């Protein structure tokens, strides 16, 4: 394997992280911290550590040839996320008093993978710079740690394509541009502009600037970290909730789809079907949740209950994980519905996690075809998605992915349950689901008003790995555990 190129690119990931830490210092300074404070000292130290590591990697990889094959690309992505998680944990370790390493790692990976589960009960007491890092890590992780320099490094050539399609849930084929760099650049531009719009909308809805910037970053990344202890419930403002609903839906919609509409290219709407399904499921879920709320409270549906239902449906399905009420107190059918929404997730090619709507739709179609074949084996049924014919290989990939994900979920439940013998079934189930699908809150012991601090260290490290697995859609991390990847010749 061409390890030098991996070192070289890893050093660039670290440089980018050092830059992000720098932004946190600026944010801290703007919010009244000074260089004498422990928090900014800690950030300076983190920058030092990161730059030192970057230098080491740079020296190791100085002879790297910019030719990326699949193996190198996959390993690079897996390794960069693991490395970024560890490096991203240093500010927590240095700033928070009596911070366990597992907590710091959990928080860091929960940030980067846009999960939004927290291991700190009192995170709202963090200094502003650290709160900013929590949100910023989600914003960076939303688009992807590697995508940022896919857009910048044209020397990577076609290797950038493999990097992009493995880190993001979309594929390079979605772009209208020939060069992947230009496609990624458009994507970043869109990401930046909706983040800006969201910030302004939050400010207009009544947050202060610090809150609106932080919430905008975690909304657009469908992350779910909040600066407030009770998430969006804290503000108790219908306007803010509507703003949040709109932007969560927007960031869970395939980015390329929206970019195309903005550019008024109507004839190539390749994702129409997925987006329509996504919106359809959201509307249906909101409707059902409103009914369950009527059942729970005994009141007729009013603006408040419909908004709450919509907010929770959107927040869970887009895998953001904000809460405007404690939905752990809802009726069982409502929770069941939320669990299913968690599983489905958002659209492919967005920042949302989960299985992705497109895979569910394809799997359903494949199932329907199998049923047809059971009684009429010779019928030829073409498989289409948004007017595009699907190859057998593509269908098989979807089904294998689903199977792999579900078996991973079951296996993880066994492990977590053995490790945490006193956790109730629903707790174990939603712990795994909330992390593997990058949602954040679950039910029972880890409900929206709870946190992950009380779990054991080994569980937290395991869950951190699950989050990265879920964010990278399994393969980029799983290959790291295949021995033959690391052999020079096999």
């Amino acid at each position: 394997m061409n390890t030098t190129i991996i070192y070289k690119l890893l050093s660039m990931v670290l440089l980018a992280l050092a830059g992000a830490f720098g932004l946190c210092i600026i944010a801290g300074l703007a919010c009244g911290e000074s260089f004498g404070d422990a928090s900014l000292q800690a950030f300076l130290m983190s920058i030092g550590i990161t730059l030192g590591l970057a230098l080491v990697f740079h020296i190791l990889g100085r002879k790297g040839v910019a030719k990326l094959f699949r193996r190198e690309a996959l390993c690079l992505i897996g390794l960069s996320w693991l490395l970024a998680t560890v490096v991203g944990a240093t500010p927590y370790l240095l700033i928070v008093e009596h911070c366990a390493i597992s907590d710091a790692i959990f928080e860091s990976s929960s940030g980067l993978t846009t999960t939004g589960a927290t291991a700190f009960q009192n995170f709202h007491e963090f200094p502003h710079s650290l709160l900013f890092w929590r949100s910023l890590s989600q914003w960076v992780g939303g688009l992807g740690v590697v995508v940022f320099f896919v857009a910048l490094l044209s020397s990577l050539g076609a290797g950038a394509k493999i990097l992009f399609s493995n880190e993001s849930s979309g594929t390079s084929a979605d772009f209208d541009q020939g060069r992947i760099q230009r496609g990624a650049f458009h994507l970043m531009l869109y990401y930046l502009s909706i983040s800006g719009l969201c910030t302004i909308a939050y400010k207009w809805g009544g947050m202060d600037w610090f809150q609106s910037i932080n919430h905008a970053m975690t909304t657009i990344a469908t992350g779910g970290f909040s600066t407030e202890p009770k998430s969006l419930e804290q503000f108790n403002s219908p306007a803010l909730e509507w703003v949040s609903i709109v932007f969560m839906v927007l960031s869970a919609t395939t980015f390329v789809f929206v970019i195309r509409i903005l550019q008024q290219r109507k004839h190539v709407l390749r994702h129409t079907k997925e987006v329509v399904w996504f919106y359809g499921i959201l509307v249906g879920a909101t409707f059902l949740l409103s009914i369950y709320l009527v059942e729970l409270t005994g009141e007729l549906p009013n603006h408040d209950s419909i908004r709450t239902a919509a907010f929770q449906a959107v927040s869970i399905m887009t895998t953001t994980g904000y809460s405007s009420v404690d939905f752990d107190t809802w009726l069982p059918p409502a929770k069941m519905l939320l669990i299913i929404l968690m599983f489905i997730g958002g659209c492919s090619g967005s920042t949302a996690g989960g299985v992705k709507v497109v895979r569910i739709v394809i799997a359903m179609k494949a199932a329907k075809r199998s049923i047809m074949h059971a009684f009429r084996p010779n019928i030829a049924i073409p498989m289409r998605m948004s007017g595009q014919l699907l190859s057998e290989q593509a269908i098989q990939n979807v089904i294998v992915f689903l199977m792999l994900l579900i078996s991973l979920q079951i296996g993880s439940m066994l492990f977590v349950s053995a490790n945490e013998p006193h956790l109730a079934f629903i707790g174990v189930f939603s712990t795994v689901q909330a992390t593997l699908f990058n949602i954040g809150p679950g039910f029972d012991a880890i409900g929206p008003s709870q946190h992950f601090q009380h779990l054991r260290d080994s569980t937290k490290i395991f869950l951190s790995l699950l989050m990265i697995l879920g964010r990278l859609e399994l393969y980029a991390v799983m290959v790291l555990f295949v021995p033959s990847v690391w052999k020079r010749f096999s």
Partner: protein
Amino acid sequence: MKIIIIGAGEVGHNLCTTLSASGNDVTLIEQSAKRAESLDEEQNARIIAGNGSSARQLIDVDVADCDAFLAMTSDDRTNVISCSLAKGLGAKNTIARIHDETYSDNSVINYQVHFGIDLLVNPEAICAVELAKAIRNPGRVAVENFARGQIEFQQQRVATGSRLVGKKLKDLKLDPRVRIGNILRGEVSEVAGPETVMEQGDVVTLFGYPDALFALRERFDPKQKVKEVSVVLFGGSETAISLIRLLSHPRFKVRVIEKCPEHCRTLSERFKEITVIHGDATSLRLLEEEQIGQCDYFVACTKDDEENILTSLQASKLGTPHVQVVINKGDYDQLDNILKTMLGIEVVVSPRRATAKFMQRSLSTEPFSVLAELPNGGGRILELRINHSSPCVGKTVKDIQLPIGSLFVAIQHKFKARVPAADDTILAGDRVLVLVNKEQEKDLIHRLL
């Protein structure tokens, strides 16, 4: 620049690689989904599996705002249809790869105008020009081809015993299709005027049509008798056909070895003056039987690279002095050097590379480009694109004041090149080849553009 390429064969594939590497926005449409999928991983371009001659597909890839549309499949008709559709849908520049000579024959109808094709390209013909260069001009100082082989440029030494010695240029009665450029006398290079007297040992720069130049050869050096040249071509491919055309002078004795009997028949019917042998040149017995060792040139130009390389090695072993090989696959590019230095193959030509070079030159938007550099500091040959705002538009050649030491080599008007005469007018859109000294380049560009 936004470029759409149809067909991911060797030519299209290689064009995609070079064009996207130089920063263009390339979209490649390939018919086979399997091929498209495997290419997607290695190309930094958008690869689409689809039909390049379907209007819907072309609209889907936004053909209307592409700067160049290249139809590069191996099928002429597909290329013509695609280009015609693309032009109709608004593509700015359409280029079609065409093998069939039918489409270049404009006597009945102008195919290019009719189908809206801006440029016809024949990779095999470009490749054949490269191969023919060495066969037609053995032992020249420098030979360069311009305008797809229409204009050749070479340097000749005035040898002892030449009847040109001591004569003024105006008295030479040269063929009008040939010009004399610079004369290098000792260390000094100067532009020849009508009063210049030729001396023994002068190195004269000549340019003009290839056959006219060849006829002039004997006058420079009477001892250099025109010999018969025997050429053996292995494979009756498109390249071979183009090469046979280029070598149609009676002094070339061409023999073609071709495996397929059908092909042999058509070849022998098409070209009466050549000998066609049905057989496989990989067989040693056949090579010996045909006395390959005694011929001057062996050119392996089948579609199969491995056979080309091995048979040419065989020919070289049997004693053929000059061996040339066509390599189609881009993957073998890195072997070029080994083939030339270690295995004694003189010329290695690849249709892809030649096409890519040609294409880059024709797609270039630079106002001028350097085509060649002459040895011994003899200056450079520049190609200038004349546009509407150039000061020289509408002027005749004699009215344009070039800096001293520079001269017009050729004028290319709508893909037809000619040696400029004093009364030729330069029009907007023409391409002008100029020989110029390095110091005067800026001055020249200033005067012409």
